[in-house]
């Protein structure tokens, strides 16, 4: 089953300047351009935005996990972004700073749940969320993801 094994090759973008949910997501989708696992970048973007309209997956504490199950990817892909200023997400305009965007193949249910569960467990570790929000650079940021 395709599953996200590590975040080492995950594109990370810190200090995003975008101010809306849609532009944040579109920019993060662009981070996945050229990846072998992504068959159709536009379709991935469309699927994620559509899923956001249904019910944006928000973890609380300024963390969002936009995602979509789509045939546009062959394996689970992840892109991570951090906004310079909080960006309002969803109909309740919840301020978000950290975004973990997943593209998930349609048949990959267990792998997706495993990846999300691992990430939420990591973010619940004391100090991790603060460290990610204040990491001065990408290398430091990645260190806290391991």
């Amino acid at each position, binding site marked *: 089953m395709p599953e996200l094994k590590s975040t080492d090759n995950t594109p990370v973008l810190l200090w995003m300047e975008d101010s809306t949910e849609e532009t944040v997501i579109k920019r993060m989708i662009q981070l996945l351009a050229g990846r072998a696992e992504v068959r159709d970048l536009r379709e991935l973007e469309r699927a994620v935005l559509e899923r956001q309209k249904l019910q944006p997956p928000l973890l609380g504490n300024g963390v969002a996990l936009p995602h979509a199950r789509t045939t546009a990817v062959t394996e689970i892909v992840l892109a991570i972004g951090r906004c310079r200023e909080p960006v309002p997400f969803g109909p309740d305009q919840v301020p978000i700073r950290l975004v973990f965007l997943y593209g998930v193949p349609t048949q990959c249910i267990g792998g*997706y749940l495993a990846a999300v569960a691992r990430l939420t467990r990591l973010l619940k570790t004391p100090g991790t969320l603060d460290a990610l929000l204040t990491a001065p650079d990408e290398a430091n940021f990645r260190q806290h993801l391991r």
Partner: protein
Amino acid sequence: MNPELSAGARRLVRLRIWLGERISGNEMRATLLWAALAGLIGAWTSIGFKEATEWLHSLFTGHYSGYVASFAAMPWWRRILVPTVGGLLAGLTLYFGSRIKRRRSTTDYMEAVVVGDGKLSVRRSLVKCSSAWFSAATGASIGREGPLVLLSALATSMLGRWLKFPLARQRQMVACGAAAGIASAYNAPVAGAFFVAEIVLGSLAMDAFGPLVVSSVVATLVTRAHFGAEAMYTAPVFTLHQNWELLPYMLLGLLCGAAAPLFLGFLKWSEIAFGKLKLPDWARLALGGLIVGLLAVAHPEVTGNGRILVFSILHYPGTWQALAMIFLFKIVATGATFGSGAVGGVFTPTLYTGAALGYLFGVAAAALFPSWGLEPGAFGLVGMGAFLAAATGAPVMAIIMLFELTLNYQILMPVMLASVMGYYTCRSLTSRSLYKDALARKGAAAVAQHLATLKIGDLMHEDPGTISPLAPFGEIVRQFMHSTQDFLHVVDDGRFLGAISLHDIKSYLDRPELETLVIAQDVMRYDHPTLLPEMSMTKALDFFARVGTQRLPVTDASSRFLGVVTETDVLLFLAGKPRSNA
């Protein structure tokens, strides 16, 4: 609704998954539970009918004893009057009830089950049972077991209808009711199950047979608690001294096989003869009662179903000449009752015919070979089994029934041989059997033809456990907790989108953070197979085997969600489908 699940609730779900992975067959377990309830209902309706018949009998005759003793104690004019009035009342009941549907036949066993969709007409069935009540209580030479089984099947049919069971399970419920009725009528749990399986369903497939066994056993236990556990026809202990003694029993089997078509032909003839009189129901049944009454003036033994006569053959047979005379009178009385259109069963009269025939054969054999030490009573027992096997066309049921009726193990081997001989002899002479005739009259061929055209859409029922694609993870877990299913069907605005497998999400049930992050759409399988309503049963079974689930959604070509079908229902349908030549 608060989507957060408590730790206790999550533990419950884990337990449910643990059990689900170790014990499969939820649907079948449910069917067995319903079968047990059918057994309970069947037994109590049987007990009620028996008690009501005895009460009415005492009202008519002024006696609380059996039919023969009651009639023997009555003056000649009353012996004529009681069955005639009884026939008149039974006929009037049918006459007024015939505005629902005119009845010709009297062998009502099978209609209960072979009616096709398992839905019995309540009014018509009650009319028939009321008519049978009058006939049975006033000494008609016919069995009580017919209406008793019909009542039992009616009760379970009503239960199935009330619970909105799909077609296959509805029919299975009726079959269970019938098995319970037979089991409680004869104190014979095994034969009750085999009777319905062999004669009605024509299948011993475990999917259909298992529920029959459960309902038969439950019905017997309830009946025994009420009436006692004694064998219906306790017989003297029989011993097989030498193997060659089996030879005369085999000859008896041949004789029974040859005599059964004559018996069946006589019943048919008497029915035609009465039909030619073109009398209304009330007059025809009164005439039948009158004939029985006239015969009872000379031999009150002809009244009733013949159970007492079987008992006396086994214990106090008297002279063979007297027995032969009563035998002839009884056959005529049975023909008169059956032919007149009285509602009831001919099972017990068939047993009596076999017992009398066997006993007389035994007397002749013992006279021809006095040194062999042959026991005519044992021939009576074997004759019962062989004649029953030949007349019903169900040797397995006959062998088991005889064992359960007598609880005499030693007799089993001769009965097995004689039953098989009787069955083959009868089949080589005629394709007619007691129940085949009845089924043919009731249009069973048309029913079978209709069943052959049924598709998955006919077995479909409502799915109480659908879920919206936007339902949060906590709601999914909650639904699984309240359901015994391994899949939840995701439906949006009447359209089927996919299914959520418990197997896919079971490892993440203890993650409360997922309960608001993940919705049904995120974890559903898009490629879950669906059935089409026009699909055949066998093709649907392939789908069940492929997915390994017990329940599949049914959709139309445009993915509109129509309902669900369970594998058990398909298996029950295939196991219970009457043979095309039924």
